[in-house]
């Protein structure tokens, strides 16, 4: 009985692992899309980390969590960070090009304009800060 449960637990973990791997692959694909489309956002290299933030006017988590987190981060980092906010309803073309499936979605680009991280859903200050430190 116990070995049966352990076997099923192992199978479950394996399936969940496969799901996480598939999610990782999708994120990698999003980063490639972001990489290809990032240059169109800037006339020249930003020379500092950039967060590209996709939102919409009626996105509640964007208003209550994501925007305050980005404001706090901007306050902490000052001129060392640029935040580009894109309203997906006004720029559906950009949302499509970047492969944005839901809002909020944040892309982190390094100073060379290379897309390094993508966060589907809310990303808190601590997580964004951690990602920025490894750019």
């Amino acid at each position: 009985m116990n070995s049966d449960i352990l076997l099923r637990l192992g199978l479950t973990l394996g399936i969940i692992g496969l799901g996480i791997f598939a999610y990782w692959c999708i994120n990698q694909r999003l980063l490639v899309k972001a990489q290809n489309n990032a240059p169109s956002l800037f006339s020249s290299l930003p020379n500092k980390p950039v967060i590209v933030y996709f939102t919409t006017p009626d996105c509640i988590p964007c208003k209550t969590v994501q925007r305050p987190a980005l404001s706090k981060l901007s306050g902490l980092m000052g001129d060392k960070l640029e935040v580009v906010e894109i309203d997906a309803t006004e720029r559906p073309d950009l949302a499509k090009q970047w492969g944005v499936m839901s809002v909020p979605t944040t892309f982190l680009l390094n100073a060379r304009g290379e897309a390094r991280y993508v966060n589907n859903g809310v990303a808190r200050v601590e997580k964004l800060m951690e990602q920025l430190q490894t750019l």
Partner: protein
Amino acid sequence: MTSQTLQKVDHSALKANQLFIIAFSILAFILGQPILVAFVALVMGIGAALRTPGFGIVYKSILKPRGWMKPDVLDDNPEPHRFSQIVGFVFLTAGSVALFSGLPILGWTLTWIVIALASLNAFGGFCVGCAVYYWLARLNVPGFGKQPPAGTFPGMKPKASANV
């Protein structure tokens, strides 16, 4: 496509429903308890009959009042989500019948399909049942009359209000 009347749909209630479906179904598999699969099927069936997310009562009575989940109300069509729940109910009912009939591979496969689709919806924001609904609507199948909200890929969570 954009002239249809959309309704306010709380996607947090849908997400809570999906998370409970996933949790109970996985627990059923690990413990080898088909009765749990039947329980989830029953809750989904009741939800489908009442036109509400099956486990939505937990969201409304516990998760939302305590602030553990915040409402995420979007302009959307509720019909595709109801259809999706009916599809899940059918799969889990068939899975339960298979499990109680001594067909574990078929039963657990059907259960895992529901887990996978609910996970895709909960974590990826893509509702396969809704996509099927919109596909049937495009084929003019009777009873499937709604179109996706403007600017929304069929099955994806709406990014914004379509009637602002």
